[in-house]
């Protein structure tokens, strides 16, 4: 069955509808550069409500392999791809098609994702709808409405996860990636996951460090989280990733902005000492200016865009890239640990 993708500016492409049935789906359209990472991208809370277009043309090649698949749903609203793999996968995995049917997610196949990416690169990220022809009218109406960026979260309630009895770390979940939680536990952190509704004193009593996760929301819309963080400022060491870092920058007096086109894939990061490593990123938010007294710890080497910062005493620091890896390179994990340990 043919379905249509229409962008806010009128750009349209047709594709073959696969997965769950669909009438109209709307979302912010992003291009994901992650080559084998469709599995994580579809389930990354930071992609909540997004329509993901995969740059890598062959999608579904290894099925869905997360062991905790049952508890994890798709976060993306829908996705776009060139070619779906429909054949058998390894024992213990399920095919992407089956996953889509089970989780009620739809995709368009045989989409010219290259033309789409070129379009987005020129015109900027924007919202889009996917619809079948009979729902064209509804779809166009929906597209005209102002976009509400959904707030995301990985956990609904406060949750404690014990690593291997190492040191304690509080995590404020604004849409943390599963990879982040898994990686922190693997490295021996005892985690307590807090939500936007958590109380400041509970956070303070658990650990002296709070990591604020990445997420799908717009910094200005994260009112609860902003208030919570403001109340914690100065009482606990605050570390942020992606959206989390943007919020920390804002509460300290810095300015944030929205990039024309977000970065959803790998990129190089340069440390203060000049060395480079590869990481990944999944956000359209960017730091426009740092608060007074803050210093830049990481930049993107082509544009010198700020990718990491800290204040003078190291009580507040942030990384704009997905230092946890998974999906994405693992070599940036060291940056996360350095930040958490105050070695940045």
């Amino acid at each position, binding site marked *: 069955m043919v379905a249509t993708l229409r962008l806010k500016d009128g750009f349209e492409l047709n594709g073959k509808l696969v997965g769950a049935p669909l009438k109209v789906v709307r979302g912010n359209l992003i291009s994901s*550069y992650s*080559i084998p990472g469709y599995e994580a991208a579809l389930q990354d809370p930071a992609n909540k409500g997004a329509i993901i277009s995969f740059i890598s043309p062959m999608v579904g090649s290894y099925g869905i392999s997360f062991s905790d698949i049952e508890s994890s749903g798709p976060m993306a609203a829908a996705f776009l791809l060139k070619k779906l*793999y429909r054949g*058998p996968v390894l024992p213990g995995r399920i095919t992407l098609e089956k996953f889509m049917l089970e989780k009620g997610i739809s995709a368009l196949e045989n989409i010219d994702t290259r033309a789409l990416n070129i379009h987005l690169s020129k015109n900027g990220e924007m919202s889009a709808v996917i619809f079948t022809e009979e729902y064209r009218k509804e779809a166009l109406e929906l597209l005209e409405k102002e976009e509400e960026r959904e707030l995301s979260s990985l956990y609904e309630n406060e949750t404690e996860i014990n690593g291997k009895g190492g040191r304690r770390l509080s995590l404020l979940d604004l849409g943390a990636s599963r990879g982040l939680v898994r990686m922190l536990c693997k490295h021996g952190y005892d985690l307590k996951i807090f939500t936007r509704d958590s109380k400041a004193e509970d956070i303070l009593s658990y650990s002296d460090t709070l990591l604020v996760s990445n997420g799908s929301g717009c910094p200005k819309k994260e009112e609860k989280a902003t208030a919570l963080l403001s109340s914690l400022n100065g009482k606990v060491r605050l570390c942020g990733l992606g959206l989390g870092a943007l919020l920390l920058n804002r509460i300290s007096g810095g300015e944030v902005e929205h990039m024309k086109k977000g970065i959803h894939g790998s990129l*190089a990061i340069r440390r203060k000492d000049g060395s480079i490593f590869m990481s990944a990123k999944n956000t359209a938010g960017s730091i426009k200016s740092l608060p007074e007294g803050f210093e830049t710890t990481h930049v993107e080497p082509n544009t010198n865009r700020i990718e990491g910062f800290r204040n003078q005493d190291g009580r507040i620091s942030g990384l704009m890239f997905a230092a946890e890896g998974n999906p994405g390179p693992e070599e940036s994990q060291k940056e996360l640990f350095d930040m958490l340990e105050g070695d940045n």
Partner: protein
Amino acid sequence: MKRSDIKHILVIGSGPIIIGQACEFDYSGNQAVRALKEEGYEVSLINPNPATVMTTPGLADHIFLEPLTVEYVEKIFEQVGPDAILSNMGGQTGLNLTMELEKKGILAKYGVKVLGSSAEAIELAEDRGKFKDAMTELGLESAKSAIAHNTDEALKAKKEIGLPIIIRPSFTLGGMGGAIAKTEEEFIPLVENALAASPVSEVLLEESLIGWREIEMEVMRDRKDNCITICSIENIDPMGVHTGDSITLAPALTLNDEEMERIRTASFDILRKIGVDSGGSNVQFALSPDHKRLIVIEMNPRVSRSSALASKATGFPIARISAKLAVGYTLDEIKNEITGENLACYEPAIDYIASKVPRFELEKFPLPVSALGTQMRSVGEALGLGRTLLESLNKAFRSTEQKLEGIEELDRNKYEVEKLSRAAHPMRLLALYTLIKEGKEEDLVKLSEETGFDVYFLYMLKEQAELDKKISSNLTEELYIEAKQAGMSDNRILKLSGLERIPYSVDAAVHYVDTCSGEMEPLTPYCYLTYGEKDDAETLSDNSVIILASGPNRIGQGLEFDTCCTLSSRAYRKLGKKTIMINSNPETVSTDYNTSDRLYIEPLTAETVLRIMKKEKCRDVVVQLGGQTPLNMAETLEKNGANIIGTSLESINRTEDRELFSNLVRKLGLRQPENRMGHSQEEVKEKAKEIGYPVLIRPSFVLGGRSMFIAYDEESLDEYFQKMNVQCTKESPVLVDQFLEDAFEYDLDAVSDGENIYIGGILQHIEAAGIHSGDSAAVFPPYKSKPEILEEMRSWTLKLARELNVKGLMNIQFAEKDGKLYIIEVNPRASRTVPFISKASGVDLVEAAVRVFMNEDLHSQGLVPEGKNIAEGSCITGWAIKEAVFSFNRFQNVDPALGPEMRSTGEVVGMGRSFGEAYAKSQAGADNVLPTKGRVIISVNRKDRVTIAPVAKALQELGFQILATKGTARDLFGMGILTDVVLKTHEGTPNIVDYIRARKVDLIINTPMGYHARRSDDSIRTEAIHAHIPYTTTTSAAIAALEAIRYLQQDRHTVRELPWKH
């Protein structure tokens, strides 16, 4: 930052093309030389391969076409005084030479630093024992293995490891001498073989991982420890087949993110551990079918065939960046030239799939069913780019130019499909496809377990089979587009659908390879075609020309032609014309992103070229530079509106069609060997009698000298028909030609403007007529010929050029017998010898041809003086000798005796003031190490004994001990030369073979004893190859070798810089 303690760098090339080491190192070396020049370094280059682009005058400051041996490199150190060498651009040859220079203390003696991979890193990566220990220290798993230096040690190791077991010799390139032993009986002979192949008599015995998944990573590291991945490559063929012989794709598709990151992190750890601190490396892994065990196979601390492939697949120029890293830059200090925007510290984002399919020479070197293994056998490869795996793979198969339109079922009359589907054979994937399409393999999971192919790839075959069936039943427009998107050719679609013409019209879309999936507007991208998507590119220019290159390497069509195409692009651009290159060979310079104004990585078929012509609105097509491939489609192109640049098709046909050619020769009053045609065996005999024996016979429909035979009498004619299984019928007649026995052969290369000719040079072959010109050593200028014969050649050439109105290059092969000149063939196109002649004469014939294409005649070019019609070049170094290089050591049972069928894979040149010097260097360059003392075995056929006598005598005088087989010894004694007698193989022991195996002989002169005796002296030559003992199979080569030995005994290793006329 750039190192300032270095001013002058010597780049080591990889030498002649051999199986396992081909054009990819010309491509890499060329990028390196240019990158270093850009940085302002003085650059010297050593590479005896005259066919390369990298040795083009003007590229490096000092070009030495000298043998890649320690002696000659040392002389270069003395003569031009470089303060560093670049080790990692010349393949395994470059690494080995660097190691030797280090071990012999030459580097220390001259204070020369190693750039690229250090001697320590090379040692650690190449020494299998040390490498394995290093992996264990990293916590990475290696296959169970042991080192053995003799058969006893090997047997002990086998107990631990078990069968099947992999046997690899240490320090060889392309896995030469490696094998897999599956049975007890095979084990010892294979071990012995491998011990012989290893220069240090050491073998590695390894747990067999046959049937596992194979993944390669192309990674780079700079001196600040910045590491990046360029791309991952997944082998479709499971473990057990050398990656060079495997069908591969990039990026890897069947691994999830976690698995990819594990491999990626391991690759960086390995780079750091081995100590590659500035450059690219290739790391190979095996993954168990359940994805649980990850095993490190090997790493190459240098650019490689895979890195060339990765560069072309992604647009990231690994060699260029490696060279910059080697001189001190870091990844974040180098610009990405494709986009012109971002820095080299990025990992290419690709929105297409790149597939590589190797090309084998199954007809010249037949392979038994399970022939593929750890030793590389393919001679070339083709790259296909497409938006899906099927699209790219269908294109890659088509691009191999083996009469496949893509993934097609095998002809059951020709192939044992069931057997091939379970055997390591080049046709295995197509055999599996055949079975799947026939419905004989329905359980793909089971098939995957049985064959080791990931089910992912088998499912892809199933999709193709289903698509085929749909097309066969009813080709709708929608289905046609789907088929085009799957990479199918119109020919294939027509065949399946049974239609005569495609009733639908769909234009191709041009997509860019831009390293960034369209994120940035690229500066120097290249292109591929796909369907049903939006165009990236606009028409390049209204002043463009299409150059058709030569496709995958094969014997008889390789680097030489690619170099002609590259040089033509350069010449055209200099003259202000925009060039559009089409090629499918990822190894080459012609497929480098900056060789042409626009490059298409596409199959060289008429359909593709016509589609590109339409896209580019360009009718001008150059077909005379890329060998046979472009010529084969020229007629179709012309019929469909192409304007063939240069010599007309009609003229080309007059030289290719036997009858037309005879008419031409007659019309011009020239002479050619008598020639007839027989439509039955009886008729062939009749015609042979008419002409008079010996005759050269061959089937009319076979090209390239295959199934050619020289018959001396009627009896051997009968034998030919029986043994070679040659059909002779009305439809497929057999050609019968007068054979000019013992004639001198010549090659002449010229450029013509239709009126005048400029002869680049005339080459005289060392081997007599009857040996394919590509396999002969050739001397420039002619070394034993009369001036009047040369004069006759010149005037014949002018006559031909005028009659045929040749515009551009032409090559003529002549033979001279008893003072009479014969014309063997005329090729109004680029020949294999054009790059060689251009360098040896100092005039770029390709540029001259391009200027003719642009209507600049030879007078205005200044090549032919006003008032004259003929001019000729001369050898700028005195003597230049081209020697053919073979890869016989890759094939167990191939007789290296030369014949009318071409089998060499590459060439080298030797240059010198004297014939002896030039020949000595040509042999050293070809790794045919002539001795200066020791023992020579002579075993020649009866008619050669008179000729060989003075050689034997001279060798004795030079201090050699001569051994001869009975007959030879007797006849030599009759001529007053006393030699010792050595037994032939069947005469008892110790015989010739025993001497060879024990390496108690330093030179073998052995001419074939004729067709009957072929078997018996087979073993002498094959044994000589395996023992790496120089041998000559013709008397003329023996005489030349004598001259060379005289030169070598003076112990001079003069190096001569290639002069360059600005």
